[in-house]
């Protein structure tokens, strides 16, 4: 398989992963508010739980990963590969950090966000990091 096809394949994979990161929290393994669970203030206002804010952040990060993948498909030069590689590693780290440290999920182990959304996002984050690392490493090897 020639190098261009591999790069295009990786770009398409990144687009797919970005879509998954963006949609996981809402449709694939929905967070608590999609199950009708909200935090209620004393005035009776319903607010999203922490997982709801994480889901919003993940949607944004997912969109950025889609853009990075698209860029790799459109322009797969060495510089782009390296830039997308570094960017993917960074976004992959963010995909993991948002639900674990930056915003977090609900604290209770029986909430759907903890049981399914969190591990799914962690796995997606790890895959994005591995792909980003491969892009950075591949450039180094070629040179």
């Amino acid at each position, binding site marked *: 398989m020639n190098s261009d096809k591999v790069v295009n394949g990786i770009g398409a994979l990144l687009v797919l992963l970005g879509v998954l990161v963006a949609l996981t929290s809402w449709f694939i393994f929905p967070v608590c508010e999609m199950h009708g*669970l909200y935090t209620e203030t004393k005035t009776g206002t319903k607010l999203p739980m922490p997982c709801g804010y994480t889901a919003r952040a993940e949607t944004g990060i997912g969109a950025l990963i889609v853009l990075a993948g698209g860029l790799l498909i459109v322009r797969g030069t060495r510089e782009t590969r390296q830039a997308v590689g570094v960017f993917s590693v960074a976004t992959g780290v963010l995909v993991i950090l948002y639900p674990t440290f930056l915003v977090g999920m609900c604290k*209770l*182990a*029986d909430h759907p966000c903890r*049981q*399914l959304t969190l591990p799914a996002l962690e796995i997606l984050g790890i895959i994005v990091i591995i792909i980003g690392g491969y892009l950075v490493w591949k450039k180094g090897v070629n040179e």
Partner: protein
Amino acid sequence: MNRPSDFRFLSLVARNLKNRPYRNIATIFAIAVIAATFFSSQYLMNGAQQSLDAGISRMGADILVVPEGYAGAGQTIILAGTPTSFFFEDSGFEKISRIPGVAKASPQIYIATLFASCCAAPVQMIAIDPERDFTIGTWLKENPDITLGKDDIIIGSSIIQNVGNDLMFYGHAFHVVGVLEKTGMGVDNAVFTRFEDAYVMAAESGEKAEKKLTIPQGQVSAVLVKVDPGTPPATVASEIMAQVPGTKTILPSGLLNAVSGQLGATTRILSVSSLAVAVVSVPLLGIISMMVAHERRKEVAILRALGATKSFVVQLMLAESFTLAIIGGCIGIGVSVGILVMYNDFIMHTLKIPFIIPSPTVILVQGVSALFLSIVVGGIASLYPVVLITRSEPYETIRGGE
């Protein structure tokens, strides 16, 4: 032929593996699946066993006596912490203390709370007598600076609140003075308070809570029993049921059987899958190795013609098989650990079993045994091709294609 240096030998192994990427990927995948299924079933059984040990050690009792008809509910409270309220006449309690073989007996009241701010679902409140109780008593002895005073509670690890803060149950504010260590069992989802405070909470609930709580005066839900050293708990349990009618006893061995039963279906699926994958994979891997061996007959013959001994060729082929087995095993085990640890909460709630992540040492031992199994499978699969190649004559093989 001089004995090759390790570096050259390993380079040759690496180069041979690199030349057949797709077959090797298939082999690695098959071995990874075997290692993953074997490791997963071991991991689940050990996690449940460790959780059960920790939970029973926390319970501190040899026998739990509950009203007849509530054995299932009592078991569920211990294993999963599913909140339930039930009572029996405590007149039996005094009788239980006097039964031969009973060293200590301590009553408990189980109250299922209403929804609380801490938690997504009601939790199990357990009222105890701190002087006599040995569930929390042991823990309190280990933490001498903590005392269970008026309106104080000690909470399980799954109850979200920090020490020093308050939690409200039935409109009554309780002060959190301690958090118990995680056991993976029902106690994680329980809060412990004193009898007196539970009675006050019940009395006030008519005005303060959405639903009135009734705790019948003079009645308890369960009695925890510690037997005299050397006395079999099963004998004492039978004696309790005979002497105190209307009671049912729960023993740790019974809990273990219940967990094994709950976990049985899952481990059976994993074991059968493991066996099925092994049964399919070993011949498959053998066929793949045999195809490679047939392809490589000339290569091996040339090696032999150049002076390589039979044992060198055998070593080379076994090293290739073992390398694939080790890579496959490591991938299978690594992926399993990652997924099982990340989906720990999901597994626990779906299988409805007590479960904690096994200790790193246990995981390491399980990983090594799964890796050993992968190597054995890889070794068995390569036996026939090795025999085939070593039996062939180099001269005939090289001339064979002419």
